[in-house]
């Protein structure tokens, strides 16, 4: 299982803060294409950075079962 975390507008669009995906050895890009298209948030995902296990990461990072991938919309703290 891979845990997908969604924040801010991504979370509102998906209607949930967390998606569990039954997958292993899959790149972030593949994960988006195979499991996240149904949430109709591709435009927002395209603008988001991403983090794997709480560290900034890239689209071609390969996720293992047990990993957590978070999609980080442009930040606005401060």
């Amino acid at each position, binding site marked *: 299982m891979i845990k997908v*975390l969604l*924040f*801010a*507008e991504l*979370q*509102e669009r998906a209607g949930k803060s967390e998606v569990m995906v039954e997958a292993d050895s899959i790149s972030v890009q593949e994960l988006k294409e195979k499991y996240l298209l149904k949430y109709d948030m591709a435009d*927002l995902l395209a*603008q988001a950075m991403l*983090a794997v296990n*709480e*560290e*900034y990461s890239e689209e071609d990072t390969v996720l293992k079962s047990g990993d957590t991938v*978070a999609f*980080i*919309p*442009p*930040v*606005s*703290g*401060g």
Partner: protein
Amino acid sequence: MERYWITPQPISIDECINKVVRPEAGAISTFIGIAREFTRGKRTLYLEYEAYIPMAVKQLERIGDEIGTKWPDTLVSIAHRTGRLNISEVAVAIAVSSPHRDQAFKASRYAIERIKEIVPIWKKEHWEDGTKWIGDQKETISYVENNKSAKEGQSD
């Protein structure tokens, strides 16, 4: 004593300051971001902040590390609020101590700029006539490109 934290409770500036006071310090520069009521004439009723908490704390620590490398004699503390904030409530508090004032000023400025770049925290504006998640304040554009309010959320 943790110097970086994210909290749904009101932030005490004194707590932030006390974490950086030490005998070697002669100067403390703080930056406090507070909820502003009017931005270009548009009235904010309240703000809402959401954070990816464990990662946000790590990124605050990273900013502290970056500052420690750039200005070795500094000590940094940063607190960021989450949840609903009424007008004039503290969203973020930064305190930097150093032996002399120049480093403290530069480091606290650096800290707020970096917070706006790398810390996973999001602000939602609640106006009289709607709401919007604000994005990409550094470049003063919203991440929702076709939103007419796209420029409302610029640098605080």
